[in-house]
């Protein structure tokens, strides 16, 4: 068990910026995902082939999942949540490739994703509801709950980052430990578990992000409905 298996060490420095394997792996992933998306959507047809059908099914599944939680804001939220799912699934599964590590095994990556979710909740809330209306929901149902709201925002973001990081790192660590203790081919069932866990963790992360974003939007909707009832 080498040091690079436990820690993400910088590969080289580019001025003040340290480039780690996580960043390099992410760039490779981005290149593959971007190239694949470009190639797959170059010749879309009304009568789809298998690949187009698969991609349309995937996009439709993402869209329907978002529609089930935030039906009025599917168009705004869908690219962010969809990208989260795609990125985390592929990043999680990257760890199955020998000699590569999942970018989500790096706390910096999961923290970055959690930070993006945290920012996106406020971004979508302010963009759709306006700053004043959005900030008002922190005072609901009582201004006394404002600190709890803020603590909740912080803790759930940290939990989001640590949950994904802990699960993916523990998976890789378990597989590595079993490989060291039991030998070749024994960790294969653990690798199968890795696939399932990768998909489940991606789903959980994306779904929680969706719920957080939708929660911020629906607090405004609840307020509007309440105002409508009181006006009536």
């Amino acid at each position: 068990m080498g040091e690079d298996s436990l820690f993400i060490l910088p590969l080289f420095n580019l001025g003040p910026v340290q480039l780690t394997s996580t960043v390099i792996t992410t760039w490779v992933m981005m290149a593959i995902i971007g190239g694949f998306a470009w190639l797959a959507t170059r010749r879309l047809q009304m009568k789809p082939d298998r690949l187009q059908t698969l991609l349309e099914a995937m996009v439709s599944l993402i869209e329907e999942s978002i529609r089930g939680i935030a039906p009025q804001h599917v168009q705004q939220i869908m690219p962010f949540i969809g990208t989260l799912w795609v990125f985390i699934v592929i990043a999680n599964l990257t760890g199955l490739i020998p000699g590569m590590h999942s970018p989500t095994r790096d706390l910096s990556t999961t923290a970055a994703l959690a930070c993006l979710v945290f920012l996106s909740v406020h971004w979508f809330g302010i963009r759709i509801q306006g700053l004043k209306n959005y900030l008002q929901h922190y005072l609901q149902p009582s201004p006394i709950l404002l600190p709890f709201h803020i603590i909740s925002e912080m803790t759930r973001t940290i939990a989001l980052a640590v949950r994904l990081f802990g699960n993916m790192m523990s998976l890789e660590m378990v597989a590595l430990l079993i490989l060291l203790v039991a030998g070749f081919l024994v960790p294969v069932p653990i690798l199968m578990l890795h696939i399932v866990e990768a998909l489940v963790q991606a789903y959980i992360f994306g779904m929680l992000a969706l719920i957080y974003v939708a929660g911020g939007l629906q607090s405004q909707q609840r307020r509007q409905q309440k105002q409508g009832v009181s006006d009536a």
Partner: protein
Amino acid sequence: MELNWSTFVLEIFNFLVLLWILKHFLYQPLLEMIARRRAAIENQLTEAEQQHAKADALKQQYESRLADWERERQKAMDKLMREIEHHRSIQLEKLKSELAQEAEKRRVAESRQQQQTLHDIEQRALQQAAEFSSRLLAEAAGPELENRLFELLLDGLNAMPAEQISALSNEWGTAPELIRVNSAYPLADHQRQQLEATLSRVTGLSVPVHYEQDTQLLAGLNIIIGAWLLQLNVRDELQGFKEFTHVEH
């Protein structure tokens, strides 16, 4: 487990770049294609609904036309039935009229046949009566009857009115040369004298009288003065009787 701020920032940047890439090269093209396909399906559904509506309209139009046809057919059928009934009544009336005419013809024919039969029977009866009378008179004829007829003739001539005698004179025109008298039995002399005197007085003629016997007269006599024939005998009376019966029928 430590947080590398360079990686943290770069990962945020990487994710935003990936978000842009996927939005422009995956989500938008696929969503546009899905939207186009949905629009095409909607168009097809709309067209199908329009076709369906058009088919429904055509169906209703067809059913309405069928109903119209049915009404027209029923109307035509009623009209035809009325015409048939009218024609049938006319034919029935015509047939009744023809039957009545035939019955009338038959009745007339039967009546005529009955009359004819009656006539034939009467004719036969008359003929038999005439034959019976002829046979009876022929058997009963004799000089006594002739004398009696002679007396009747003389009475008749003597009782003849002057206008009739004058008319008879005009009929014979020029005076005949003789007067012929035929009798079934020879006349006695005194009878001849009485006759000649009476004839001379009635006709005003002074011509000889020629007597002849004609047994076919059975009894009685006839007198021929030019074109004038005076008959008083059984044969001519019977003949006259027969002719009279013919004329009567």
